[in-house]
């Protein structure tokens, strides 16, 4: 499956089957980011293979969002770190327009209806509106938005708004999709439905996804691999491969393998949460 994606999404020399490990789509080496006296990331190492679904969990304030802003091209890491995309070393700014980024909130434009919100990125790219709309209309059923194309964001439920935002991200066809807690604001039931739905869509379109969440269940349920981040300054504490079979059924969350993975990840996160809590307390005392 991954071989198919490689040939589709990235032109690489040589036969992908020959190499044991496919060359990564995105690679971060020793990435550091400081804001004045605050170090958000320190020596972060990570890589994402083409077609892979990687989830990132960590204690709050661990620099997850900084990591995403760098990969989205919105912020430049400190000098010294290495950023490679599609095999080439690059600046973060080079990634602008090359990664499809979905922030935490849906950020739909209130003056645009569902279809016009979904095609925003295509329009920015320069695709004629009629063509972009036709493309979006074809995708509506899969995103559960049939019949809602003319509705405005304020007329939609939270789950639907999130699906419109996801559709906007999917329509902007890029090698890598960055999803920053896309389901964080949804109720548990909608959330579980959206997770299953996302897996279906992901398997159909075979995109590479980097997905931030603070929900360990979600990280395991969705991911091929889970990265646990350390407390600030953030780096990768643990890299856990999730070898649960796909397609994953909702019942899987009670399977022994799932619970075992969850235990491992929770232990790692708990340790880091304690650290960040203690440092916060120490800071409080110091001031």
């Amino acid at each position, binding site marked *: 499956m991954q071989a198919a994606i490689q040939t589709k999404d990235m032109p690489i020399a040589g036969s992908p089957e020959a190499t044991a490990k496919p060359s990564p789509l995105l690679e971060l080496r020793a990435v550091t980011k400081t804001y004045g006296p605050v170090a958000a990331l320190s020596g972060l190492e990570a890589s994402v293979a083409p077609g892979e679904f990687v989830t990132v969990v960590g204690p709050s304030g661990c620099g997850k969002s900084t990591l995403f802003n760098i990969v989205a091209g919105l912020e430049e890491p400190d000098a010294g770190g290495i950023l490679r995309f599609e095999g080439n070393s690059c600046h973060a700014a080079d990634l*602008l327009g*090359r990664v499809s*980024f979905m922030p935490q909130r849906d950020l739909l434009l209130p003056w645009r209806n569902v279809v016009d919100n979904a095609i925003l990125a295509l*329009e920015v790219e320069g695709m004629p509106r009629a063509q972009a709309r036709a493309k979006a209309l074809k995708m509506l059923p899969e995103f559960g938005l049939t019949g809602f194309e003319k509705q405005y964001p304020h007329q939609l439920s939270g789950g639907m708004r999130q699906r419109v935002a996801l559709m906007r991200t999917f329509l902007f066809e890029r090698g890598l999709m960055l999803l920053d807690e896309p389901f964080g604001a949804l109720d548990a039931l909608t959330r579980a439905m959206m997770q299953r739905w996302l897996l279906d869509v992901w398997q159909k379109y075979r995109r590479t996804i980097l997905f931030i969440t603070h929900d360990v269940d979600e990280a395991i349920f969705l991911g091929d691999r889970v990265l646990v981040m350390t407390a600030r300054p953030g780096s990768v504490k643990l890299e856990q491969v999730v070898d649960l079979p796909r397609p994953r059924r909702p019942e899987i969350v009670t399977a022994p393998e799932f619970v075992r993975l969850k235990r491992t990840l929770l232990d790692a996160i708990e340790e880091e949460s304690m650290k960040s809590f203690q440092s916060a307390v120490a800071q409080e005392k110091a001031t």
Partner: protein
Amino acid sequence: MGATTSLVKDKAATGLRPAGRPAWLRKTARLLFGLAVTALIWESAVQLFVIRPVYLPRLSTILMAIAATPGAYVNGFLRTSAETLIGFATGSAFGVLTGIAFFRVRALREMIFPIFVVSQTIPVIAFGALVVLWFGNTLLAKAVIAFYLTFFPVTVNTLLGLETVDPKQVALMRSFGASSGQLLLRLQLPTALPQIFVALRLASSLSLVGAIVGEWFGDTTGLGVLLLQAMFTENVVAIWGALLAAALLGTGFYAVVAAAERRLVFWSAEQ
């Protein structure tokens, strides 16, 4: 909210309610009724309390005076409308453009904005005298005074509106690879639009004030001229006539701007 309004529309359309009429028709009917009641109270109060015409003439007297010389009022109305509209249009355009310029170029804002503020502290009468010296007693002179009163609130509100844009939204657009022009047209200006319209509504009345004050510096037609003439001849009925005409112009213009706002900024009321 959307559901309820469409429900009401459906009801009206299918005639479920016998008295069902389109919403705008009902509103207009109520407005006309309100006006009629006010006119009636005016008319009868003057008679009932024997108010002297110096203070308040009867409405019918005023209307008859207007009907006796309709030409002067129609010409004055048209002339003042033209001055108001030109001043409003140029002032608004200038205001929006300077607002954008100040938003994009910080240095420009620090250089020019204080001068804008100073310009607004000059009393419009003093400024008007200058303008008449420059442009003479022309329509242009009045439009310039209307412009002078109009642009500043638009500049300020455009700037304010542009600054309310969510940085996260900007980040999202940039991640799509949007240029600064695309950012402006697709995100920043639409976001600022509700705020800009607040200023435009204000500007619609200010531009009328500018036009009328402009006419006081000397002219032969216009509502301001009618007002001034009536004042000099102490013709109370004529003062009230000019006043009613100015009120009609001001209200009509305001209503047009407000209607444009409802149409263009349809989303802000519903959020």
